[in-house]
């Protein structure tokens, strides 16, 4: 086969053209085709995967407003937010004192009580055990409250204190404090 004078290409044993260093020119075509194909597959795959993430209507779930006016010290209410229970507890002075005293205790997930309650009497918590997601007991006076006087998760035995901090059991974290704001002295908006 005749070689064009200007070319740095020679003919490979298979008949295809190759560069002087012996790499076949087809390699470029194979590589770019494979790269395009792989990119397309990954991008399409991502669409499939992402379709399983929360959809726009789920993300648009509203926030919840809660009135605390009727609560008496020592009472708790459970409200629903994003399909999950939120605990609101009007804590007694003893509970607050205990929570503050325990700021210095040996905590698995150290946090001060002050950082967890915007107003110290009202504690707002996501009622979802940080172990595997059960709803801890302790909202009713007759419920078990665990060894630290707060909440107790019966699923695998996690104990939370009067600030909702994890003290014993398999859960790794304190009960989460959801984002909330006081609209006035006795109303909060969660979310």
């Amino acid at each position: 086969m005749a070689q064009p004078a200007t070319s740095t290409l020679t003919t490979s044993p298979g008949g295809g053209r190759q560069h002087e260093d012996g790499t076949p020119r087809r390699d470029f075509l194979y590589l770019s085709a494979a790269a395009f194909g792989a990119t397309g597959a990954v991008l399409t795959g991502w669409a499939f995967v992402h379709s399983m993430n929360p959809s726009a209507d789920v993300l648009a779930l509203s926030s919840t407003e809660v009135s605390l006016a009727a609560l008496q010290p020592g009472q708790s209410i459970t409200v629903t937010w994003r399909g999950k229970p939120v605990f609101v507890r009007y804590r007694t002075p003893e509970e607050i004192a205990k929570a503050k005293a325990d700021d210095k205790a040996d905590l698995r997930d150290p946090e001060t009580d002050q950082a967890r309650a915007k107003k110290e009497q009202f504690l707002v918590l996501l009622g979802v055990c940080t172990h595997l997601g059960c709803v801890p007991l302790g909202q009713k006076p007759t419920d078990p409250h665990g060894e630290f006087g707060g909440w107790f998760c019966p699923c695998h035995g996690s104990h939370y204190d009067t600030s909702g901090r994890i003290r014993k059991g398999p859960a790794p974290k304190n009960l989460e404090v959801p984002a909330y704001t006081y609209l006035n002295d006795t109303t909060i908006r969660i979310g």
Partner: protein
Amino acid sequence: MAKYDYVPSPFMSNPIVKWVDHRLPIFEMVDQQLIKYPAPRNLNYWWNFGSLAGVMLVVMILSGIFLAMNYQPNTLAAFDSVERIMRDVNYGWLLRYMHMNGASMFFVVVYIHIARGMYYGSYKAPREILWWLGLLIFLAMMATAFMGYVLPWGQMSFWGATVITNLFSALPLVGKSIVTWLWGGFSVDNPTLNRFFALHYLLPFVIAGLVMLHLWALHVHGSNNPLGIDAKGPQDKIPFHPYYTVKDAFGLSVFLIVYAYFVFFNPYVLGDADNWIPANPMVTPPHIVPEWYFLPFYAILRAVPDKLGGVLLMFGAIAILFVLPWLDTSRVRSGRFRPAFRVFFWVFIVVTITLGWCGAQLPEGIPLILGQVCTVLYFAHFLVFLPLLGWFERPRPLPASIAEPVLTPAAK
């Protein structure tokens, strides 16, 4: 291509069969792989459980498809649609009882099938890939059963789904996003139920595909046998039909009696009464337990007082089975010739059943401690006992061939 001296069955000379086979050799395959297929002559009844598992897969797919014709995968309708199947759909109760109890029977059969493999060393060379495929089937079965249990949308459905999906939140960094992705929201909810139904419908067919590969791998070297030695020649084998078709059919009849007892006389004994309460995301039942077939693994999860540690150990309990062929250092396959292994094998069975018992109890006091002890023993079996046994045990002498102990009674 048959690797044995294949003599076609008489029906193979039928002109229609010939016409078809010339285009798609399907009769030839059936004849070679199922009818004339040479199997070891000494298979005992523990070898029935593979075909029983296959029958259960068919039963589950059939009953499932007919259930799906009346089931509604929507949180508002799911629970009531199952009630409607039970009360209003003609024979709906039968379909559901077959499916519900069928899942339990499927696991009984597969657990025995796996234990058989462990006792007779069926995972050893050259059957490692066969063993892996079996384990993949087991994993897919667990995923299928877990998602199926969510469908009736009772309290145990909901909270089982919550706890199990939350296992992934133990992973560092990505854990939470993975859980949100699995849920399609911020808690187990309608998107979760929908996708679980889609996957519950799909996975059994994936299992069917894996079963094909499992059988393909099986037929490369043929079945292991109670002696654990390779067949030395034609005198060690008999054709699958009629010998094992009859034996399998007999075993199936006995098995169906047990299955029918549960379906017709005691359909709820294996279930949990809490699943008759419609799902309530605000209240966790006081005592969450998975279905019985998950209990040993659940006990391992709870034995560790650390979230990530528990999750890793639980998955590790299954993952370790994949390397079993290399942890067992003995060159003798069958437990029949391994006096020390035999003891440890039964200890292992007792440990696993004890774990199952612990998994059903509240995680405190004696069940918790017993669960921890058994967790250690479970892993020790694979990581300590089996590797050492291969070195220290003196196996009993192996027979020269499969036929020898049968044909020469004195040699028994």
